[in-house]
């Protein structure tokens, strides 16, 4: 067997298998619990908040397996936003399952006009490129906004994403609000540079800060140009971030969304260009996210995604109403070409 285990129909319950393409309707019972209805069957899905960066002990993984056995003959799944999703055959079971999960410390929630998910990358926890620690930010945000996951309504669907650096593995630009780490120090060139593709490395720099020193078989990073984006660090192991004092931070990016519902797919915009890293609880970051959510909740029409509301009232009013200060980094000069192209995108 090469590649993923397949066909997928070998890994699904017969109640699902016989209804592929035959579901007629779904109904939301309460946050996190959905009823799926076909002509002959009904099943329930129960959606669970994952831990930051979806990290689990094998102990918990086995408990998940136990719950799958108990309620759905050993079948479960994970959603595309890395939340565990369980199944039940009756509403009563679904509610029991929810209780079981909650007693394990795993809240059930999401769907409709709620927070659906908080995706996050590995950050300091497991990655070599992090400028900020995504898991601890995701946890701090989760604690602050959980009521929107399993209780209070928002104007529309809402998602959060946290990534430790511009690579955006945990998502960034794509969620309604994203937090992304930004390096602000200049990387340094080490011995290892010999092993890198010099030309390729120079080409990767978005601002042309890398000067090729062909003769010396090395490169030089022009400090006055470098914006510390870290692209070269990821591409070549001979370039690393290493200064005595770290003052990295993260940006708050607002208004991403994927779906076709107007205004269609959107790349988030940089609303706060820089907040210093402040573990464990990142007060200012959390406050800024809450401020945005609460202003949106108060002002938006029902069904209006965050960016739809902002597009209606304009960015000027967004800053006015949220009280978030405006900084010049939010103005785009550096690479308008990209800006353009990304906004263009056909179809949706």
């Amino acid at each position, binding site marked *: 067997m090469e590649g993923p285990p*397949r*066909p997928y129909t070998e890994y699904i319950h017969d109640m699902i298998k016989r209804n592929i393409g035959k579901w007629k309707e779904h109904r939301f019972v309460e946050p996190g619990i959905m009823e799926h209805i076909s002509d002959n069957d009904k099943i329930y899905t129960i959606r669970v908040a994952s831990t930051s960066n979806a990290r689990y002990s094998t102990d918990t993984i086995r408990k998940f397996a136990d719950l*799958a056995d108990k309620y759905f003959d050993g079948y479960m799944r994970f*959603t595309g936003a890395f939340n565990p999703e369980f199944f039940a055959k009756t509403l009563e079971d679904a509610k029991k399952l929810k209780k079981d999960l909650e007693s394990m410390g795993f809240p059930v929630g999401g769907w409709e006009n709620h927070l659906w998910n908080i995706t996050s990358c590995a950050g*300091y926890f497991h990655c070599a490129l992090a400028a900020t620690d995504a898991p601890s930010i995701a946890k701090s945000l989760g604690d602050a906004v959980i009521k929107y996951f399993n209780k209070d309504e928002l104007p529309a669907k809402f998602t959060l994403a946290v990534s430790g650096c511009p690579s955006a593995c945990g998502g960034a630009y794509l969620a309604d609000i994203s937090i992304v780490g930004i390096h602000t120090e200049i990387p340094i060139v080490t011995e290892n540079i010999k092993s890198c593709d010099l030309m390729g490395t120079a080409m990767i720099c978005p601002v042309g800060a890398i000067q090729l020193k062909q003769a010396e078989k090395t490169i030089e990073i022009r400090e006055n140009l470098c914006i510390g984006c870290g692209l070269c660090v990821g591409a070549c192991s001979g370039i690393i971030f290493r200064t005595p004092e770290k003052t*990295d931070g993260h940006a708050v990016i607002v208004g991403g969304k994927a779906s076709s*519902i107007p205004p269609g797919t959107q790349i988030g915009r940089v609303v706060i260009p820089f907040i210093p890293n402040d573990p464990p609880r990142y007060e200012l970051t959390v406050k800024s996210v809450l401020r945005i959510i609460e202003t949106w909740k108060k002002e938006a029409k029902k*069904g209006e995604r965050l960016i739809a509301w902002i597009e209606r009232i304009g960015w000027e009013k967004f800053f006015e109403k949220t009280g978030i200060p405006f900084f010049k980094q939010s103005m785009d000069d550096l690479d308008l070409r990209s800006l353009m192209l990304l906004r263009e995108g056909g*179809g949706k």
Partner: protein
Amino acid sequence: MNDPDEVVKGLEIIKELKKGPWPSYITETEKTRYPLKLYAASLYLKRDLWTTGGYVSVPGVPTGILMRVTSRPDIGESANVVRVYLPSGNFVTSKMLRNLADFADKYGVSMVHAITTSEDFEIPGIPKEKIRDFVAEFRATGMEVGSTGDAFRNTTTCVGPALCEYATFDTPKFRDDFYNRFNDYAKYPTFPHKLKLKISGCPLDCARASQKGDIAIIGSWEGAPLIIREKLKLLSEKEMLEIVNGCPTGAISLKNGELNIEGDLCTQCMKCVKLSKGSILPGEKKKYLLYVGGKLRGKKGPFTAKLVEKMDDPYQAFDIIERIINVYIENAARKERLGDMIFRIGMKNFLDLIEKEEKPYHIKDLRTNIFYKVSEEEKTKMLEELKKSLGGE
């Protein structure tokens, strides 16, 4: 031996992260052998304490296995992380989960990453010397590792018709078939940079294909959506009006209580479907849209994917993907994502390279200056086409 200061202080910090109602990854981690002291120190120092160690090569895994090297061996060890494919749609069985847990206990640090943002499992913390054995033994259980390097990364799809009535095609099955045909590209790192294919069964795009797909396939349709009249009847006048006013193109009208959708104006935005309580569904004349160039970073920052083809059958994508792969390999610079390459050479040229004629749907908006070239042959061709379309009046 006493812990250094940064560990002591760091452990204080992470205690805080065990509190609160959101599930705590720290609480989970404490049940594992993951080097929590290293992480704690990094939070205190506000500095990443891992460095990249490149890839460990393993027989039968040409893309290699990702290494994590500690920069503080005194407080935490280096290790590697292995990515594991899930079945399509991320459906798993309890057996599969227990198997995973067993391997994580035996080879790793009793931690499972379930699942990554690109929808693989990961087993972290496997020491270098155990990798070979792990891979051999793990494969014997019917599982496969991979999805790293400059290759076709894990292909992800929405759950599709397995759970969702909006699905225009069987997205998880499509992924199964994709691997049957393209597995070599996933296995061998022959690309300038990674390539990702993401697939959604309808324009709601639960797979975020339009944002994250170097190549994206999104199911859609042509003309009006499908109205289920008997269900529509159950809606109140107010709900109907909401649907009418919600349509961004004014395609929906209400006359004498009868809802009507002008297919000609529908842009398949799904707004009416979303508002309809199950009484409006994607239309019957399915179309499958192939997009290219989405990603979140690359050299130029985030791009949304751009539409290049409307297909009648999603499987027509296979040959186009083959062509795109070849064009990508031949034209991209090292570490250049597909979207950045297309940006650099221009969409017009990219269409030429993949042998597609330009269509209005390739753009969202038109050019706003006249700084372009028109050759004598093009003039003749344009004149002919204009005459043909305008002449007959």
